[in-house]
């Protein structure tokens, strides 16, 4: 392999050919500041327009300063990353960016978590010498995402996520020159577009230009209303990431503290979406086996593969982009919506209250869930099954607002009956987890045998598209997994072309699955954080005494007392849904 010798700030460095100056510098502990650049290792995600010009460095012998993020290291290069000329240029460029940025840092949703603010601080900007016209745009509020484009700095990260990673294609750079900005077509509102609300644009935005709709206020109001019974569910991926918001190491499991915090916030019942995940497995697993059985019997009307349907962004994606395939995904609702439906029927009955007096709040790693709960089919007489959704980040803000010292909280357990879950429910939060949970149950139901081993390593990992064949006692079941909608599109196109040989496919919209959701603590481009969160979920699974959904005693009780059996009429009514052509 070709190696390159160069000097950065007088330190000799040896790197592989093709390494950028930025990477070479970071290898020897020189942290060149960047703003637009973003690289998520192992996921093939890179945004490198070379546009912000913050990372410029001086390369000996070159006329102009070079952007470190996209200049390859060459043999014999001598680089200065902090000469007078470099620092002056960097600060001037920063002043230029700030000169076209609103000065409302103090009240910005991103304050304290803003890469632009951090960079201004890092570069020691104390005045903005160049002032003039600022771009102004209409604010765009959708059910899930707010675009405050005045704050856009044209880093193009959202555009990369929306087009190259997710292939949704809502956002594009428009206009040119000073008027250029990232926007949907015709500057229409997001809720008129094909946006899936996956929130990956929000996850990578370095400023406050893209944020989630803040519903903490509504939650506080509900909690302080004595007439309301407020119950909360919390998604699996939240427990693996919330700690980061309180300065804890990425991947720290905070399940117990999370429960304790929710209780201190005043929720009447603290439940677990994992319970609903187990319920999902019962319904979806049964549906899979039904379809598979008919398919094997030669029923031509049965469509395979079956696709998971837990992810609301994914659902909206195929409704817009592949409406002709809307019969293929499982009709099972997502765990959030199953939870809401059960809470406002089964559990409300138990409490003997009307559904209108119950407020169901979800804590989700996701911004699309805010949209999902507002869909009409998840309402009864206008009353939604799930009333309010907070992202992991919003929950953290609420905890801080309520003077709760999160780190010192004791570990507490979820309430019953909707708080009991299995390891299978926990791993719903990562790519590969839903299908692994389904396999655990489907296998045992189909073969009527105990699984010798519960860890399916062949289904785990971070690759965008994975496939595996699981032996169902002589029946090979071919499974596909995709995370990131761009990868999902590839599998869908194969199905469309009749080239797909899978029996079941799991799809999650966000890279990494829900652990990388648009509502999670900002990873600021550090992909290793996602891996740590993933590890945490597998650890929690391993530590659970029950690790198969169909063994969850409260699930069994729910069927016994209320639903009958999976895919029963009642289950169908409460736990399944239909999809719409949105073109």
């Amino acid at each position: 392999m070709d190696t390159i010798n160069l000097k950065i700030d007088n330190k000799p460095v040896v790197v592989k050919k093709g390494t950028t100056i930025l990477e070479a510098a970071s290898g020897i502990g020189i942290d060149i500041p960047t703003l637009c650049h973003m690289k998520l290792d192992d996921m093939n995600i890179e945004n490198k327009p070379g546009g912000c010009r913050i990372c410029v460095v001086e390369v000996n012998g070159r006329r102009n300063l070079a952007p470190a993020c996209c200049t390859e290291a060459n043999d014999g290069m001598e680089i200065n990353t902090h000469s007078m000329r470099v620092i002056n240029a960097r600060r001037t460029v920063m002043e230029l960016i700030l000169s076209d940025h609103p000065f409302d840092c103090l009240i910005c949703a991103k304050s304290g978590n803003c890469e632009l603010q951090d960079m201004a601080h890092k570069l020691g900007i104390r005045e903005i010498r160049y002032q003039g016209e600022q771009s102004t745009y209409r604010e765009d509020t959708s059910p899930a995402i707010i675009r405050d484009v005045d704050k856009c700095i044209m880093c193009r990260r959202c555009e990369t996520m929306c087009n190259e990673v997710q292939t949704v294609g809502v956002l594009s750079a428009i206009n040119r020159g000073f008027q250029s900005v990232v926007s949907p077509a015709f500057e229409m509102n997001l809720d008129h577009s094909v946006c899936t609300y996956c929130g990956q644009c929000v996850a990578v935005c370095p400023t406050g230009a893209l944020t989630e709709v803040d519903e903490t206020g509504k939650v506080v109001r509900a909690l302080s209303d004595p007439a309301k019974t407020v119950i909360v569910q919390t998604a699996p991926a939240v427990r693996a990431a919330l700690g980061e918001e309180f300065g804890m190491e990425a991947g720290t499991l905070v399940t117990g503290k999370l429960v304790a915090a929710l209780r201190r916030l005043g929720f009447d019942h603290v439940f677990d979406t994992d319970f609903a995940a187990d319920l999902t497995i019962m319904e979806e697993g049964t549906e899979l086996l039904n379809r598979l059985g008919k398919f094997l019997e030669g029923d031509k009307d049965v469509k395979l593969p079956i696709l998971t349907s837990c992810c609301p962004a994914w659902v909206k994606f195929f409704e817009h982009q592949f409406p002709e395939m809307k019969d293929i995904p499982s009709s099972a609702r997502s765990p959030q919506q199953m939870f809401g439906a059960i809470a406002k029927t089964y559990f409300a009955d138990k409490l003997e209250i009307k559904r209108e007096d119950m407020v169901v709040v979800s804590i989700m790693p996701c911004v699309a869930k805010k949209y999902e709960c507002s869909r009409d089919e998840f309402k009864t007489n206008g009353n939604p099954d799930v009333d309010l959704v907070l992202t992991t980040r919003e929950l953290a803000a609420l905890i801080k607002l309520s003077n709760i010292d999160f780190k010192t909280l004791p570990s507490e357990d979820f309430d019953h009956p909707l708080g009991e879950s299995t390891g299978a429910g926990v791993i719903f939060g990562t790519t590969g987890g839903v299908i692994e949970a389904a396999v655990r149950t489907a296998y045992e139901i189909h073969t009527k045998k105990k699984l010798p081993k519960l860890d399916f390593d062949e289904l785990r990992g971070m690759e965008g598209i994975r496939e595996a064949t699981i032996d169902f006692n002589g029946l090979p079941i071919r499974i596909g997994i995709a995370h990131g909608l761009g990868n999902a599109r590839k599998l869908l196109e194969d199905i469309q072309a009749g080239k797909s040989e899978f029996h079941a496919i799991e799809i999650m919209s966000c890279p990494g699955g829900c652990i990388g959701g648009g509502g999670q603590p900002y990873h600021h481009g550090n992909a290793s954080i996602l891996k740590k969160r993933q590890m945490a979920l597998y650890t929690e699974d391993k530590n659970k005494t029950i690790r198969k959904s169909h063994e969850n005693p409260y699930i069994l009780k729910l069927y016994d007392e209320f639903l009958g059996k999976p895919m029963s009429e009642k289950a169908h009514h409460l736990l399944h849904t239909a999809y719409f052509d949105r073109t």
Partner: protein
Amino acid sequence: MPKIKLAENTIELIQEICVEFENKESELINVLHKVQGKLGYLPAEVQEVIARELKMSVAKVYGVVTFYSFFTMIPQGEFPISVCMGTACYVRGAEQVLAEFKRQLKVEVGESTEDGKFSINCLRCVGACGLAPVVTVGEKVFGRVAPSDVKKIIAEYREGCTENIKTA
């Protein structure tokens, strides 16, 4: 999404043009040129059809349309007036000529008059620098235009008589 409300034959026209370019995404600019050539402008609904035919996102189409000054989403006037703002024309007074057109027609650059007769645009050098300052109305080129000629040019088009105009 706004439902596409174009006439059936317009949609067919766009489809034909896309087919001519093999429905390739990389031919977008050629498609836009041709469609604008036929329809005069590229309204949102047209861009939606093009995006659908080329199997690309309408945001990308819009991104391209708004990048290139040649493409317009606003219908042009019956007599589109373009004032060359190349350097040669600028130093020979194109700015005053443009100002006079704006004053006379009471519209800004890029707009059309209420009766739809005229629209004003700026051009970057038509290459007739020897005739600077240059104004084009449709296909016709007017050279050495002085602000005092503006009224005359407009009047003759307005009256529908384009015969006796000094052209250079």
